């Protein structure tokens, strides 16, 4: 009457874990729509913070946007900033707590519309902070309105007939702009919709955190992501659409890398 463990039991043993949700994500269910990239982005950042053993040294800043509740999910000390002001908030923190790892997590409306001034000047001052920028080309939280990064002719709640660049302006490549500033040190654009991209994105996040520890200036990681709700697609469709439409406009890869070896 020997009990013979099932195959599952043999394998799914704690010792055999090769991937598990990081303990720096809380148990609270994420408030995001199914398939939304915010969740993956959260996870990667927290994985790196965990792996670098930075929990006690990290102060995060949540924006106004779908990720407004990031503090419910990230098991670190966090501040919720007013819409667009996260880089200023992070500046206030970092200047007074220079030994902490300080990051903001911001959407494209937050960072590139209302927060343009704060973003540009934090970058220009070379604040030793890290900005994670989730660009989904839309205002997810408020119900899918046009963002500065919305693609030409893309339909949103406030461009129901498509973004007309003549009257509504052009998609703003803010990442390319801030990469031009001497205050930024490492600028990279990533995505998190395939396993390979997730791995690359995590690398970029790691670098951005490491460089902050060296006080090299501002590090900036953009993550091009879907907002399947706002785009009115299934998660899978939205990732496909993103590859076909967003990436040509927002090509992935490092935009500014440190010159010295």
């Amino acid at each position, binding site marked *: 009457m020997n009990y013979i463990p099932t195959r599952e039991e043999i394998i799914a043993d704690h010792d055999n874990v090769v991937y598990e949700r990081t303990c720096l994500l809380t148990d609270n269910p994420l408030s995001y*729509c199914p398939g939304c990239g915010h969740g993956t982005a959260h996870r990667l950042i927290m994985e790196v913070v965990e792996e670098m053993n930075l929990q006690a040294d990290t102060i995060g800043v949540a924006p106004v946007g779908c990720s407004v509740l990031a503090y419910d999910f990230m098991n670190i000390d966090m501040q919720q900033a007013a819409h667009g002001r996260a880089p200023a908030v992070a500046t206030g923190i970092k200047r007074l707590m220079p030994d902490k790892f300080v990051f903001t997590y911001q959407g494209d409306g937050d960072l590139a519309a209302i927060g343009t001034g704060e973003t540009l000047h934090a970058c220009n001052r070379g604040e030793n902070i890290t900005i994670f920028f989730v660009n989904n080309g839309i205002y997810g*939280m408020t119900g899918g309105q046009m963002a500065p990064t919305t693609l030409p002719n893309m339909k949103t709640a406030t461009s129901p007939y498509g973004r007309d660049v003549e009257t509504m302006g052009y998609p703003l490549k803010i990442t390319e702009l801030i990469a031009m500033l001497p205050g930024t040190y490492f600028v990279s654009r990533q995505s998190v919709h395939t396993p390979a991209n997730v791995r690359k994105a995590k690398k970029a996040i790691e670098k951005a955190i490491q460089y902050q520890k060296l006080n090299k200036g501002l590090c900036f990681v953009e993550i091009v992501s879907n907002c399947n709700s706002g785009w009115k697609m299934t998660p899978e469709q939205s990732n496909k659409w993103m590859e076909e439409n967003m990436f040509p406009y927002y090509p992935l890869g490092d935009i500014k890398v440190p010159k010295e070896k």
Partner: protein
Amino acid sequence: MTEEIIIAGFGGQGVLSMGKILAYSGMMQNKEVSWFPSYGPEMRGGTANVTVIISDERISSPILNKFDTAIILNQQSMDKFEDSVKPGGVLIYDPNGIVRHPVRKDINVYTIDAADEAARLGLSKVFNMLVLGAFLKLKPLIEPEYMRKGLEKSLPMRHHNLIPENEKAIERGKQLVKLEHLMN
């Protein structure tokens, strides 16, 4: 006469538009109506609900804590709204996907297998009209003639060809509704 209704479920189930058709129909029948949706980030995660009030007098608050009727279309909504039915009120739900069924004994509980029926018909769009039929069976506030006017007003022109289908679904819903529990 004042009827205070909450309709709650998923985004995509047609919750808001069901409420809107109901409100529009009431308005066509010369009643005072109000329609108040959950809005903003509340809707993240796909939940949606709407409060509809149909009354003979001016409506005070469009936001309520207690309702005459709750129409409930998923578990999360059941958890949230079962308690907000007034004693003696009505709770209608689609049992599909419901794991914790209503337990209150001081209200009247009905079910409608609308999802199954919609699937059976191959017309997922009429799901909400089936549910609306169930409600109208139990609370025949709106006369069919105004129901049609409501449909006309609330559907965009290009969907007017679907009105007969919707009306049929409403009728079907009236047949499908089942009593689960009568209040003690």
